[in-house]
């Protein structure tokens, strides 16, 4: 029964750590179908889509009058 105990301990440990590290609200959001920083998709950056906190702000640059 040694292997089962190792796996049970690993599962309990990992579940505890993931509950602590991953905000519960993000988990609820992703279950409801909304992606967020915790459960995001890395392919967005390859596909030139902006990611959290790093939007393209070229359009907001003030132009010099002179």
């Amino acid at each position, binding site marked *: 029964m040694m292997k089962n105990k190792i796996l049970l301990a690993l599962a309990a440990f990992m579940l505890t750590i993931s509950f602590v590290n991953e905000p519960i609200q993000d988990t609820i959001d992703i279950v409801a*179908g909304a992606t967020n920083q*915790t459960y995001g998709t890395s392919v967005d950056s390859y596909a030139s889509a902006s990611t959290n906190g790093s939007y393209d702000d070229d359009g907001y640059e003030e132009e010099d009058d002179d």
Partner: protein
Amino acid sequence: MTIVLLTALISVILAFFFYKQIHKYKYILYGFFGLLALVVSESGNIITLGFVPFGIFLVVMYTGVLDKGIVRKRLALVRAEYAIIGSILLLPHAIGYLEIYLDEVFPKLAGWSQLFGVLAFLTMIPLFVTSFQFIRKKFSYKEWKSLHKVAYVSYLFIFAHLLILNNDRFFYYLAITVVYIALKVPTVYKWIEKRKKT
């Protein structure tokens, strides 16, 4: 990782208490999960991001390394069903990402992680097809068993795919990989010893 682990936990609990029902109504379940995969395939969610299928595959993988006993016995009874359900739910993840990479990102930009993901998906196709009972019956037990050893190659590709992603969940994936290999090594060693004797 919470989603992956909770999916695995719920799958184990359901298998333990409802293994007979899961086995009996498997085709209804395949139909239900097939429809679900179609419905959710267009958006980013716990299925298309791969969390739910990975949770189910964890149960399929780790069933093989459990100690002999009632838990292993009941999980083994629904292992094929779980493998098929996991594969059905993996389709939106695999096809969705493949589509993105082929359409919007030049394949040359795709990294090793994506390559291993594709390899894992490709090696899973024959396993998925031959897991259906009516197809399995066309093979002898020995042939089927040999073919399903490819599953270990597929597991390696999955582990490589996840580890090379190198995201926030890297250490979870590393723990899952290391523990799986550590628990599998004694079984493989015994198998090699047994073959030497015969």
